């Protein structure tokens, strides 16, 4: 009994130990802001995986909601109020609402059709961000704003300090992943797994499939939008390419790379992808070949992703 509990929670414990202590050891291999980027994109990938790995639905359009979250945060800081908290909230809300509205339109589709229609809507949002340049800055990007210090009443946290920002990122990450984990362990989450395993059987069991998929989609995109808001804050900049389908592809890659069946898989995928790309692109312009090689090797030798190798015994 206790042993099983230990192996189940071991990955979580290890991951959190690594994340909490990151600023201490990160400078040996990289730098703190890179750690923030890993966590932020990892959140985006975990959010995608909520839909992909746990509900069995592939989306290639998550960058749209990631990007809406980013623009929401940037526009808030630029035009509304110098409040980081408000920026995150508005970005997240904007992305989630957009997803909830789009959802009913696409729910009836499955498989690769669903994936392609998510690309379609994603590219439509990309187009809007590009064309509406009076508001979004268009191709030049949204600039002239930056993350503001957080006033906690008893102290002010200066977010320009990368370590402070990293811990803010970690707090947001904890809240979001905690929420997603809780949802996945709830009856709602069990229904999602049932849908993933065998949609028809789940239907016979009386689970309202479309409603569940819509909810899963909205939750997944909502948390992707949170990641987007944090991404905007990390860079103090947003440009339309954050909404492009190639960014969506990156999230999918991270999820598959790290292991779709495991909750933390996408975070590992994000770590590998981000650190590898950052490191390799500093060493050589031929980093694309090396990353491509890594992907191919993962598919050939670790088809269940890195964590998939370990996760086979543990329940998903």
């Amino acid at each position, binding site marked *: 009994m206790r042993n099983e509990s230990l192996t189940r929670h071991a990955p979580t414990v290890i991951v959190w130990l690594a994340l909490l202590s990151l600023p201490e050891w990160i400078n040996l291999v990289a730098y703190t802001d890179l750690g923030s980027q890993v966590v932020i994109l990892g959140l985006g990938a975990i959010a995608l995986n909520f839909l992909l790995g746990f509900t069995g639905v592939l989306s290639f359009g998550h960058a749209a909601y990631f990007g809406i979250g980013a623009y929401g945060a940037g526009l808030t800081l630029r035009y509304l109020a110098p409040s980081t908290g408000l920026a995150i909230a508005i970005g997240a809300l904007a992305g989630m609402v957009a997803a909830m509205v789009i959802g009913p339109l696409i729910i009836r589709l499955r498989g690769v*059709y669903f994936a*392609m229609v998510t690309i379609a809507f994603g*590219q439509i949002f990309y187009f809007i961000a590009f064309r509406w340049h009076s508001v979004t800055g268009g191709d030049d990007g949204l600039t002239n704003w930056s993350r503001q210090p957080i006033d906690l009443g008893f102290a002010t946290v200066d977010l320009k300090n990368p370590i402070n920002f990293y811990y803010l990122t970690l707090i947001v990450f904890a809240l979001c992943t905690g929420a997603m984990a809780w949802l996945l362990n709830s009856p709602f989450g069990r229904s999602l797994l049932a849908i993933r395993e065998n949609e028809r059987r789940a239907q016979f069991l009386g689970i309202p499939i479309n409603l569940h998929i819509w909810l899963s989609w909205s939750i997944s995109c909502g948390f992707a939008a949170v990641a987007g808001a944090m991404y905007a804050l990390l860079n103090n900049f947003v440009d339309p390419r954050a909404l492009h389908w190639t960014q969506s592809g990156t999230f999918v890659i991270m999820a598959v790379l790290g292991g779709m069946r495991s909750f933390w898989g996408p975070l590992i995928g994000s770590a590998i992808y981000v650190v590898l790309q950052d490191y390799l692109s500093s060493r050589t312009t031929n980093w694309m*070949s090396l990353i491509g090689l890594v992907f191919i090797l*993962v598919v050939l030798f670790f088809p269940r992703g890195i964590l998939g190798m370990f996760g086979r015994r543990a329940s998903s």
Partner: protein
Amino acid sequence: MRHKGERESPQGPSTAVSGAPADMNQLILFNLFNGLIVGAFYALMALGLSLIMNLTGVINFAHGGFLAIGAYLAYSLIPYVGFWGALIIAPLLTAAIGLVVERLLIRRVYGLDPLYSLLLTFGLAFILEDATRLIWGAQAVAYQVPSALTTPLSYDYFFLTGYRLLMVAIAAVVVIALFVILKYTRLGMRIRAGTTDLETVSALGVNTSILRNLNFGLGIYLAGLAGVLAAGQLGLQPTIGSSLIMPSFVSIIIGGLGSLPGTLLGGLLIGVASSLTSVFYPSATEAVMYVLMASVLLVRPRGLLGEEGRF
């Protein structure tokens, strides 16, 4: 070249000396026609992608990379075999590379979740782009088309060059040949049968490894050919294929997965749609193909000519 002050008078009925804008009907008609040309090109590339997807379920994200390879091989061959020689040989060489790639890499992901083929071909796309940049450089290279082809044939409704005519002629010939192969040859019949039920085909004694290998090669041939044709119209640099991959996917989805005529139709449709959009709202020429795709999927989820229950 041109000297100061010298100018031929333009032909065509539409213009007054003061420079009236083009007659709307003329524009629409032209763009309908031009859209078919552009669409034929999209269809050529999309058909290759569709062939591969239908038989093996592999989503070939590296298709754009093979397009680029085809174009660059043609560029390198032209000094030796001339434009026409390159047009024939380069796609064949690209197909040969495709056969090797299938044998070494692609066949390892058959039967797995399509996501793995995605990850594999994504990685392959990275490698192909990097390889072309390494071999031929990042600087765009000057790809020359015989001057006989680059003269306009007419100045008004059929604002057309010899090259475009050639492109659409080749695309038409190849597409017809493809459908003939699929319908009447043994290989074609096996591919079609395999698309419906590969297990049974295998049980009937057909070597499915070779079948899938040749099918992939055929798909890559089309990509290579599309590349050679594209190089005559576009700047030839390592990312030439990356902007063409999305229209291919969109063509397939609009036409319906599993249906090659559907893919052809899809390609033509988005060609015409984006050309017509350029008359009224040019900024949206790229976005319109996504709007079209979304509309088709919402109204008829399996695509225009797609089969029920596929994917």
